[in-house]
């Protein structure tokens, strides 16, 4: 059994973080250069941590598998970032953001972590503004806000439809400054292929140089994984093509508990799937739901174009079912509602696989100019992809895998169950429970990277003053290097008939069908028998052309797909044991008469932290019981 001590500090929730920061051990500024820290991933969580640790004086090595830190997938976030600034004076507060986030997560997150996130949210906006992030402003020059799902206040800061891009460029600039000053050693086009544990502590990492195929080791006093989520287990998702679970999965295999893998978020507003050749799905920002109204025709056999369908023959189903939140119902709820409409034959478009997101009313109320100002780039993107003009015809949207709330288990200090190994951002499980609210991913990434990790890491480092990292010629590093090199050699030598992509696509279909928006015991059991069978085929019939001594993207893909095979089984196993519906995890057996998720707080108010046993289907379940001292567990209602 694992020791799942969450290390939540004592005291009232509002004081925990302050108390922690006072009680933790510190490293004297002059001693910090005697410590080395590895940060893997240069998105919001990783880049911010690397830059901040370097500013504080630590020696940092940052790794990215991209050509530049600026490519990390944080860049694709569109809508915004939440912060409890209460600039609109509409009743927002740290407490309300905390409450909304815990409720939005369907009461499956750790209270103390979420409260800290809400506290730090205000500092993020200050920090980013000081760096020159061009947030949207009012004419008077003050910052503007918009609304997002799951909140009744306006607390989302944004930079057009490119908030993630601007925040990431802020991080990238800050990181670049440290690289230029020589405080961060940056390794690009390097992919983590394993981590190394010596005497029960993380000693460092093994990476593969994507340009030469060379496998090498790096050691440090502490290692941070900030490598993002695993939505690409579904094959089709809104994640970038290269997003993968390898770093966290390899850490899991070395002893880091994997928490709540079944908590995956299906984002309600994406462009519907079109053809089998499709390589990825495209998100349309949730911010569109500020002004767009979602509807389907009442008549399932409707054939008229949307503008010909009169008002009384339209079903604005979100406004009907959830009058107080309306089109801004949280993501899990909006997604499921769309599925209900499409499954009952009300879908729109040629394939009847979408619902309308209509700006007609907003355009006549506000004018085209205002809508263009708010969403211009999103409308353009939609037009480019679908060849339809959303100023004239409603968008067609449908849910798609987008974000994963699950990830490596971490304690209050963001340390995994392997001492010395930290995990930040989407890669960890910590703050969003079973469902993440819109505009909260950017908040968590930056909170972890700028404010949490740089404060907690000293508690681990301080007692290690004067020690040197395990040398990379240590036998443990050599053994892991050999293992990794052999693995990549194996892919090229199987000589089968099918590409990694072909396997990935088939795996993704199984995961989507049985562990997607709706799960059943029967379906999950089916997936748990189909995935290993396909995995066996992968091991025998994989074809990777080209060699292992220069760039080979087919080979890179093979490694990532293999890890998805194991992770997908854990996702299903987790979904199977969780006999309740909560947030993004909807078990068809557990729903109310109205089709809403039915939680079981008595039996399932815990974090499921899985332990690797050597066999993906025999993972061992550990439980961290969630205690709610500040928020009253209630049925989550957005009606």
């Amino acid at each position, binding site marked *: 059994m694992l020791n799942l001590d969450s290390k939540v500090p004592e005291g009232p929730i509002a004081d925990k973080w302050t108390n922690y920061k006072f009680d933790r051990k510190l490293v004297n500024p002059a001693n910090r250069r005697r410590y080395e820290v590895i940060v893997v991933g240069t998105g919001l969580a990783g880049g911010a941590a690397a830059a901040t640790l370097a500013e504080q004086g630590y020696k940092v090595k940052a790794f990215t598998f991209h050509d530049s830190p600026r490519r990390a997938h944080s860049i694709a976030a569109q809508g915004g970032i939440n912060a409890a600034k209460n600039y609109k004076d509409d009743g927002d507060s740290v407490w309300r953001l905390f409450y909304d986030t815990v409720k939005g997560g369907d009461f499956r997150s750790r209270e103390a972590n979420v409260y800290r996130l809400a506290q730090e949210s205000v500092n993020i*906006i200050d920090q980013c503004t000081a760096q020159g992030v061009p947030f949207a402003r009012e004419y008077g020059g003050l910052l503007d806000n918009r609304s997002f799902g799951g909140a009744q206040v306006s607390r989302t800061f944004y930079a057009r439809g490119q908030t993630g891009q601007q925040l990431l460029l802020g991080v990238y600039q800050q990181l670049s400054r440290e690289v230029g000053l020589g405080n961060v050693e940056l390794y690009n086009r390097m992919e983590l292929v394993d981590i190394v544990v010596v005497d029960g502590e993380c000693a460092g990492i093994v990476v593969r140089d994507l340009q030469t195929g060379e496998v090498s080791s790096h050691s440090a006093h502490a290692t941070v994984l900030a490598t993002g989520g695993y939505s690409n287990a579904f094959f089709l998702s809104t994640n970038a093509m290269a997003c993968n679970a390898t770093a966290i999965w390899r850490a899991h295999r070395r002893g880091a508990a994997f928490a709540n893998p079944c908590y995956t978020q299906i984002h309600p507003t994406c462009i519907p799937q079109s053809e089998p050749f499709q*390589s990825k799905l495209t998100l349309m920002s949730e911010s569109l739901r500020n002004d767009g109204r979602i509807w389907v025709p009442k008549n399932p056999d409707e054939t008229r174009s949307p503008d010909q369908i009169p008002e009384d023959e339209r079903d604005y189903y979100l406004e009907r079912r959830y009058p107080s939140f309306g089109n801004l119902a949280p993501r899990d709820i909006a997604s499921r509602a769309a599925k209900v409409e499409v499954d009952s034959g009300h879908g729109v478009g040629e394939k009847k696989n979408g619902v309308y997101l209509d700006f007609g009313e907003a355009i006549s109320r506000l004018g085209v100019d205002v809508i263009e100002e708010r969403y211009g780039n999103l409308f353009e993107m939609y037009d480019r992809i679908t060849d339809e003009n959303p100023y004239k015809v409603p968008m067609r949207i449908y849910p798609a895998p987008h974000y994963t709330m699950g990830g490596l288990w971490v304690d209050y200090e963001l340390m995994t169950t392997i001492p010395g190994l930290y995990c930040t951002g989407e890669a960890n499980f910590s703050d969003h429970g079973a469902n993440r609210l819109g505009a909260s991913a950017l908040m968590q990434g930056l909170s972890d990277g700028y404010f949490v990790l740089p404060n907690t890491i000293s508690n681990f480092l301080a007692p290690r003053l004067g020690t040197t990292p395990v040398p990379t010629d240590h036998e443990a590093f050599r053994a892991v290097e050999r293992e990794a090199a052999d693995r990549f050699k194996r892919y090229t030598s199987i000589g089968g008939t099918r590409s990694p992509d072909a396997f990935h696509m088939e795996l993704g279909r199984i995961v989507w069908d049985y562990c997607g928006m709706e799960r059943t015991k029967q379906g999950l059991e089916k997936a748990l028998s189909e995935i290993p069978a396909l995995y066996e085929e992968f091991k025998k019939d994989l074809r990777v052309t080209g060699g292992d001594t*220069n760039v080979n993207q087919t080979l890179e893909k093979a490694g990532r797909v293999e890890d998805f095979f194991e992770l997908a089984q854990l996702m299903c196993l987790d979904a199977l044991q969780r006999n309740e519906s909560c947030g993004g995890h909807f078990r068809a057996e557990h729903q109310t008469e109205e089709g809403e998720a039915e939680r079981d707080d008595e039996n399932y108010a815990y974090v499921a932290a899985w332990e690797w046993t050597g066999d993906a289907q025999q993972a061992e379940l550990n439980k961290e019981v969630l205690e709610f001292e500040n928020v009253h567990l209630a049925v989550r209602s957005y009606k």
Partner: protein
Amino acid sequence: MTTINITLQVWRQDGPDASGAFDTIPVADVNDEMSFLEMLDLVNEQLINEGKEAIVFDHDCREGICGTCSLMINGQAHGPQTGTATCQLHMRTFDDGDTIVVEPWRATAFPIIKDLMVDRGTFDRIVEAGGFITAETGGAPDANLTPIPKPVADAAMDAAACIGCGACVAACPNGAAQLFTAAKVAHLNLLPQGQAERYKRVEAMVDTMEEYFGSCTNHAECQEACPKSISIDFIALMNKDYLKSKFKNRRLLSRG
């Protein structure tokens, strides 16, 4: 939806020092709803099935925002559609029977790594030299302390929209990086927060740029190729600040 048949002429080059050549690949039954990169996925699948090595190309988000994708398509950076990155270019732009020439970015400052993949590390060097505002984590004042007029914030955002793809350099007959550099300089130099380092920044960035890239002679090809339609007006702004920097940074005047 219709399907078209095309012929690709793709640059293949095994490594930075290998000599490259065009490979002619006929591609049948291309669905015109495909994006250009999905078409390349299809070709790669086809190549792997034939036991051949897949074409290496940089790509990631496929939403036009990460700036990873590149490609000269029929001699144009990111292909024929204005304001569009390769990943958002669709095959409906092409006709049945077309021959499409696909090359990597062509610029000395972007050496080829393999096939269509190039090394754009020189862009990072420019940013490392000064493309930031020094604001270490922790000390920031309240974000609303400094009001920024909306037109200023908007102009900074127009410049900040740059995705760092390198199309401007690839499209420039001189292989100059003025548009990329100017976009970052303008983003930061327009904002009140960026004033403290304004002249130091522009000087350091321009000087670093000139170590690697060609010189600007106002062809304006960069603006045409830019997938974010960033205006060359920003280059004028950068030049103005650069000139001023030579007077303002008096400490450095004696360098000659």
